[in-house]
């Protein structure tokens, strides 16, 4: 079954996440980087969830990753694939797998970043099979 476009709930940026969503509007996926412990995290936040330092910044992700797990929701008017994708940089993020045959999605599959428009908010990072 080929995936279809669906209405995407708009993310609501706040003071802390505005930079992330401004970057998304420019087609960039940002992840959190801690300059104290060196670890990367997702979703990005001001204080590192590992060492609790506030010496964090946003780093652009390459946009490539692999599918950690997924599920195709069959009982909604438009079926869709939710997934967790492990980014090449390390962190794993919730996302959708789009622009593909929903029945051919597999764990371990290589995917690349695409952005999809949301319903009245900034575009949302999603992934499609390479």
């Amino acid at each position, binding site marked *: 079954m080929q995936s279809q476009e669906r209405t995407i709930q708009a993310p609501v940026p706040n003071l802390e*996440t505005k930079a992330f969503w401004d970057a998304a509007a420019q087609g960039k996926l940002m992840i959190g980087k801690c300059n104290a412990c060196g670890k990367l995290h*997702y979703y990005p936040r001001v204080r590192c969830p590992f060492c609790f330092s506030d010496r964090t910044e946003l780093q652009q992700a390459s946009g490539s990753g692999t599918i950690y797990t997924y599920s195709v929701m*069959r*009982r*909604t008017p438009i079926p869709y694939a939710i*997934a967790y994708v492990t980014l090449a940089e390390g962190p794993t993020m*919730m996302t959708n797998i789009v622009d593909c045959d929903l029945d051919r999605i597999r764990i371990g599959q290589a995917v690349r970043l695409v952005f999809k428009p949301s319903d009245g908010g900034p575009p949302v990072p999603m992934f499609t099979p390479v």
Partner: protein
Amino acid sequence: MSIKGKANIVGIFEHPTRKADDKSLFQLHAECAAGALADAGLTKNDIDGYFCAAGDTPGLGALSMVDYLGLKLRHWDSTDTGGSSYLLQVEHAAEAIASGKCSIALITLAGRPRTEGVATGTAPRTAAVQSAETAFENPYAPATANMYAMCAMRHMYQYGTTSEQLAWVKVAASHHAQYNPHAMLRDVVTVEDVVNSPMIADPLHRLDCCVISDGGGAIIVARPEVAKSLKRPLVKIIGAGEAPKHQMGGAIDLTYSGAVWSGPAAFAEAGVKPADIKYASIYDSFTITVVMQIEDLGFCEKGQGGRFVSDGNLISGTGKLPFNTDGGGLCNNHPSNRGGLTKVVEAVRQLRGEAHPRVQVPNCDLALAHGTGGSLGTRHGSATVIMERE
């Protein structure tokens, strides 16, 4: 300080309704409280501690509920960890009793999701208030079913778990539910019935999912001296543990639950091992929920849960680990989309020898009740309670 032996469960009640279109939410809470008081042989004014989950008691925390019930309290707590809240509240009540903050604690749960027509499993989450993660999750339409489905998908990939193995969880629950006149689903089902039921969210079928029911329940926890003054079998709390599990900054691993922490804490406090447990109530929002928690609690090795639950191993009378002998959330009842309270209730029935004769575990003197609330696919609160018959 340990809670071991410091508090007893003296009253239990599971509301018989599964569709409460003629009752208010508050009335349901009160009926459950009255039921547990009658079971214990106590009256409302004996209660000096009240515990509930903020999410199913509208108002500021427990405040409106306490007002409605007319309670005079020395101690209260409305911590909400979703469906596991009531297991956590048993622990918190025991802690409060052990430290002298109250003597007789009431825990209530009620809800009407069936009457209100909530598509609990498949409706994408919406947020009235934005949590820290909301913007990073809700655009992807996480529902309940597809989040647990992602756990199942990964478990299958990593450990070779099959849909047929998951189906055995439902089969066992249905074997028990046939003897429960209040159960929503009383028909015995087969592995084939489960795997041939409609796909909801790959790889979970309709019969891998729990019921949506109205109703509720209540538990009364009291000092051992109070328990001994009542004319009921003695069930004491000997160990408990709780733990949250979350997304760990993106170091996500969906193959295990917070039971890896709450379980060992409870076993250590109780001084018993998984192999000693005669009966287990295991939260069964979905079949995969049971498989993961059984592994995490140490009833089998990690990754072996699918094999462990197969071939009727969870069926009372034939299996090694009789579970959810009321039919559980999969067949009996999942009031307010929160299954933790009924898990304690059936464990107490087993310890008292008051389960249905066809599912009563012989000489059941040690039982465990365990649950997770929230979602195994994102973040959840895990809670484990171990109880002993005196």
